[in-house]
């Protein structure tokens, strides 16, 4: 089997397990209050981590580029209470325009 197919099958199997872990193994079981509190904090933590990773994350390095300018534009749009689509288009347009220059 080629290296590529080993990768595809191995990564696929592990990912199926990762994504299925909660719904398959925990299922409809009601979470205890502490676990519920955990889940409440997880979303803002995960989202913040995603923002940082996607805004300035590079190959094991912090990379400041047009994405950050796009996020700044998004921040302004959010302050102005723009709808979600406008926020994202502001970010994309800012990054794209800067790259044209």
């Amino acid at each position: 089997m080629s290296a590529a197919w080993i990768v595809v099958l191995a990564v696929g199997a592990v990912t199926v397990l990762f994504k299925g872990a909660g719904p398959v193994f925990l299922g409809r079981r009601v979470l205890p209050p502490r676990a519920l509190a955990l889940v409440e904090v997880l979303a803002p933590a995960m989202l913040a981590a995603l923002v940082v990773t996607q805004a300035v994350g590079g190959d094991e390095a912090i990379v400041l580029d047009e994405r950050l300018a796009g996020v700044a534009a998004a921040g302004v749009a959010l302050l102005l209470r723009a709808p979600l689509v406008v926020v994202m288009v502001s970010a994309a347009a800012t990054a794209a325009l800067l790259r044209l220059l």
Partner: protein
Amino acid sequence: MDQESRFRDGVVAGLPLALAPLAFGAAFGVLAIDAGMGGLAAVVMSATTFAGSAQFAAASILDSGGGAAAAVVAAVLLNARYVPQSLAVASIFPGSKRRRLVESQLIVDESWALAGRSGRFDYGVLVGVGVLFWLLWVGGTAIGIVVGDLFDPEAIGLDAAFPALFLALLVPYLRTRRALGAALLAAAITLALIPVAPAGIPIVAASLACLLGLRR
């Protein structure tokens, strides 16, 4: 509101982002061909792994001559965040274990984040966004293999749209001190770990660090 309309809500919520999975899917297809993976392997990977960063990392490693082991490790680390995400939505999937196993594959950052928008994770939204993205992702990959790049997603700033999306989804949470603290802590940990840890670790570490903060 019934399930069908929630599903439609999900699809509608995902539509503004639709260009992204399509364009990045095509980009992955192109990279996979360059890396010698072959078209079928690329499409199968998109259909089964359905995770952009992990797929790009694995293909890049293969492309640069790294072995299967390195590619697998990188992809697995990057996808580790789906475990806490999966646990968070554990109770919203209906039906048999097999159905839950299949439908939980629709968990990706965007479907998970948009599903959580109302405060409680919404199954219809998750599946709606998930199905839309899956179709576009796999379709995009197929297009990339056959046609080549559609266009450069970075040229139109699509890579900036993602952090913007997650920022927009984060802001409503920041009304409680607890959530604000968690977000700041997670951001700081992520920033600190990116230069020193393999890709994927910073997000998981930052998310899990908030568990420690809950000892009260």
